[in-house]
């Protein structure tokens, strides 16, 4: 690129000052409290909104200029990818299942982020955060759209991409990412900013985008690499906004500290739970592996997060709660999650498989303390059973955690042979949790979490069948009825990769691309 740099009349700082702060005023026809009704109820005290600092000092004119350039680059590559049958350049068709998970589970969250930042921005009385939230809101809708555009190329050829919007509100495992974001956008504007701006964007988003997108590049997927890096190029600004929010709130009033700390504890744990899906993608779904989940966690959470919380200690902030458990879990969660999806592959909109011998060797090298001891024997047993014709697809429904909505698949900290269960009695009902973290989050806001739409409960209550279906009819098949309701085609979208239509088509098309048949 060769951009024209205009000779500036104003320096960066002055220009930012005029084009953001200079635009706001105190309302008089209605009181500021009436105009910004959500600004105080969370208990956060702000005395001077002008103390807000935006380190990048980006103004809308520069914003459009650079975003337009990013879009031009993005669409040039996406077109080339489509014109060149880019889908056939991926290492191995199993890889495509990782992008199915991305489109179904992550892209819709980009859209929710767009709504969330638009809402938070509207509610802040200060001009600085309002402008920053406006930009992030626009970034997020761009992320949703570029991801959908780029993955629509795969939808032309492969199964499981066809109804991500419909599935988001129905399919059992998709309630995990969806409820995470629904939880955030139904909080107040300050909590939303700490939840998404700080805990998710600053502390956790690198784990999602950096190793996974670099992994997409490594696996020959130019489309995903392009939307990933294009989104990520906005991320540095989002992260900086997240950090700025924390510093600003803490500097405004000492009473803000305990509120913010509780939010950091809650949202780091909530985000960490959602990232289990990403850990599984990295360790099991990328045929060419770039780094393990555990390594990514060590670089992007332990090292960076460590530096961050050391820095924030001057405000009285301590590292998030439950880190000792997280530290122990990093050897286990990706393996435990993949095992559950392998079990429930009949109810999934992507395919599963047992890793090859090479891949198992890689896993045992990356997880010397856990893989050979706990997970390899189980995978080998399942492989043997499948060979004998006994591939077992679990058709009973799992118990879900009331808070994170993940099936009870995690083990006790320190004992990977024992499933971790916690429970709470609240108003004549018993609620179940996967961990101390999820339990404590519930106990802090029980009235919020008793409303959770838990897919398993909904199925048992008969709310997940199409109109007119009679569950009492002779020979009723509940799984088939639920899959109909999901718009998931049995035998095409679900079950093992081995023998799937995706596998056959990919082999045939790749053959056509390399031979004159």
């Amino acid at each position, binding site marked *: *690129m*060769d*951009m024209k*740099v205009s000779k*500036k009349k104003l*320096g*960066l*700082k002055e220009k930012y000052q005029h084009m953001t702060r200079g635009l706001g005023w105190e309302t008089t026809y209605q009181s500021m409290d009436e105009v910004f009704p959500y600004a105080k109820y969370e208990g956060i005290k702000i005395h001077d909104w002008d103390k807000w600092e935006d*380190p*990048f*000092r*980006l103004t809308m004119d*520069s914003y459009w200029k*650079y975003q337009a*350039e*990013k879009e031009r*680059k993005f669409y040039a590559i996406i077109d080339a990818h489509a014109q060149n049958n880019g889908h056939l350049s991926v290492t191995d068709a199993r890889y495509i299942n990782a992008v199915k998970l991305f489109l179904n589970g992550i892209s819709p969250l980009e859209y929710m982020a767009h709504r969330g930042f638009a809402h938070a921005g509207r509610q802040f009385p200060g001009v600085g955060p309002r402008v920053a939230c406006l930009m992030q809101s626009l970034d997020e809708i761009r992320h949703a759209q570029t991801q959908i555009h780029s993955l629509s190329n795969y939808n032309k050829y492969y199964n499981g991409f066809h109804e991500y919007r419909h599935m988001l509100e129905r399919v059992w495992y998709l309630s995990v990412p969806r409820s995470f974001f629904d939880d955030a956008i139904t909080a107040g504007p300050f909590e939303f900013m700490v939840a998404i701006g700080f805990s998710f964007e600053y502390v956790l988003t*690198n784990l999602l*985008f*950096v190793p996974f*997108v*670099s*992994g997409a*590049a*490594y696996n020959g997927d130019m489309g995903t*690499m392009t939307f990933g*890096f294009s989104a*990520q*190029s*906005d*991320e*540095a*600004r989002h*992260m*900086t906004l997240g*950090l700025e929010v924390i510093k600003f709130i803490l500097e405004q009033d000492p009473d803000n500290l305990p509120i913010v700390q509780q939010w950091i504890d809650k949202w780091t744990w909530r985000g960490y739970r959602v990232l289990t899906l990403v850990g599984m993608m990295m360790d099991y779904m990328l045929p060419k592996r*770039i780094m393990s989940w555990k390594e990514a966690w060590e670089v992007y959470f332990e*090292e*960076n997060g*460590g*530096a*961050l919380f*050391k*820095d924030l*200690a*001057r405000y009285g902030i301590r590292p998030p709660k439950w880190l000792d458990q997280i530290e122990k879990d990093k050897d286990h969660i990706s393996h435990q999650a993949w095992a559950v999806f392998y079990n429930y592959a009949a109810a999934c909109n992507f395919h599963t498989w047992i890793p090859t011998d090479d891949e198992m060797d890689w896993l045992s090298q990356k997880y010397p303390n856990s893989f050979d001891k706990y997970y390899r024997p189980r995978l080998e047993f399942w492989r043997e059973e499948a060979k004998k014709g006994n591939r077992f697809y679990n058709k009973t429904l799992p118990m879900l955690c009331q808070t994170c909505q993940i099936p009870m698949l995690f083990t006790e900290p320190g004992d990977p042979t024992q499933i971790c269960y916690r429970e709470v009695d609240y108003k004549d009902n018993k609620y179940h949790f996967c961990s101390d973290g999820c339990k404590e989050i519930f106990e802090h806001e029980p009235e919020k979490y008793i409303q959770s739409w838990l897919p398993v409960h909904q199925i048992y209550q008969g709310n997940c069948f199409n109109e007119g279906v009679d569950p009492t009819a002779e020979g009723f098949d509940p799984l088939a009825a639920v899959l109909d309701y999901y718009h998931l085609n049995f035998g095409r979208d679900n079950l093992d990769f081995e023998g799937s239509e995706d596998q056959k088509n990919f082999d045939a098309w790749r053959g056509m691309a390399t031979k004159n048949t």
Partner: protein
Amino acid sequence: MSKVFIALQTNDDTRSIIQAILADNPHAIANEQPAMVKIDAEGSLVVRRSSIEELIGRDFDLQELHINLISLTGHVDETDDELTLSWNT
């Protein structure tokens, strides 16, 4: 001392930017990964406009960095001439 980092896409635009950053920050280490470069540095890291301009032979606006930026950590301070990343501890 905590580490800060900046990660950039690997492409023609960033070749000179990375070169300038490494020259201006002798303590920084470049880690090449598929399609990206992550530059780690103890304590702080500075990106200087003049050094980039010298290498690319044209005017450069530091905000152009946003186009190829992947991620960063640390407190950001940006002026017309420099972008600095640092931790206070």
